[in-house]
């Protein structure tokens, strides 16, 4: 093998390593985006990515518009405390907002905390 051949092989190997590093960096970026995405607005495609129990609660909330945990429980046929827990999980994810009206707490679809 001549010096020129060796140099060419080294250049090719460096290109291959550079390509691999680019792909690793791209994966790192997309992972970061999905972590931030948890604070995204709740659209129907995001709804489809939620776990079953949260999706059922969020879907019912879309239908009701604004609702208490009790309203939700009536629609989904689950316990009020269970729905309250799921709703508060959705609030922490930024998908749902809650507000007080008198002694009642109402939940509704939020506008997201991120982009």
């Amino acid at each position, binding site marked *: 093998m001549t010096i020129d051949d060796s140099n060419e092989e080294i250049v090719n190997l460096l290109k291959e390593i550079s390509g691999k590093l680019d792909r690793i960096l791209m994966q790192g970026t997309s992972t970061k985006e999905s972590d931030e995405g948890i604070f995204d607005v709740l*659209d129907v*495609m995001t709804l489809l990515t939620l776990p079953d129990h949260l*999706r059922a609660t969020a879907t019912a909330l*879309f239908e009701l518009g604004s609702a208490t945990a009790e309203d939700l429980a009536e629609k989904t046929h689950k316990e009020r405390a269970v729905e309250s827990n799921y709703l508060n999980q959705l609030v922490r994810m930024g998908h749902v907002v809650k507000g007080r009206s008198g002694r009642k707490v109402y939940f509704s679809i939020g*506008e997201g905390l991120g982009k």
Partner: protein
Amino acid sequence: MGISIAVHSSKGGSGKTSFSINLAFAYTSAGKSVCLLDADFKAPSLFNYMFPDSDRWLNDVLDGKCDIMDAIVEVADDTVAPGKLYVGYCNPDIDAVREMSGKDRKWQSKALQNIMGVKKKLFSSGIDVLIIDTGPGVDFTSVNAIAAADYVIMVTKPARSHQKYMEQIIDGIYIPLGKDYGVIMNKCHDNKPIAIPGLVDPDIPVVASIPCLCDIATRSDSEVLTVADPEHPFSKAVFTVVRTIEDCLSNK
């Protein structure tokens, strides 16, 4: 309380719009008050220009700028009796189509909330059946309509590409959203079109099969088969779907 039906397909050209129009008239022939909406925002059909014009669009309703009651027009025609029919269109202007294609996720989330509001408003105004003729495949506008529906009709045809994608849509969209659904096999050439080996998962509920007949296409631009020819195989399939949906939703 009324029922909402989304008429969907995995790919274009399956016969969704003809089916939606005939389904609407099958319900009006039974005395129902029906609202039929063209929600194919990226390729508006305007229901083959068969019904009165409107200058208000569903685009503005989803945008929260227009009340649904201002965006629908009554089809005052003898063929509608004994029921009533109202239709609403999406804006066919290319600028409007382009604008809809560029809507962001925040807008689409609001649009879904507005569609839910449309349902409530129509039902409280005396509409018995809301039929939404959606765009094909999976995008925000079609999946929003599916999310708002009580029952989804998938109109497909016996081609491998249509059916493979149909199975994915059922598993990836209808089932996760908890939708009741039925499949219409349209444009069939086989004597037993329901049983096409290797194409359809046996668990998929095929509600009706419609043979591929040229007169369905040639007559559909000027007449409604469920009214003009109730004994036509196409009309019979539509009436079968009405009974299936009634059975399905009454058992809930």
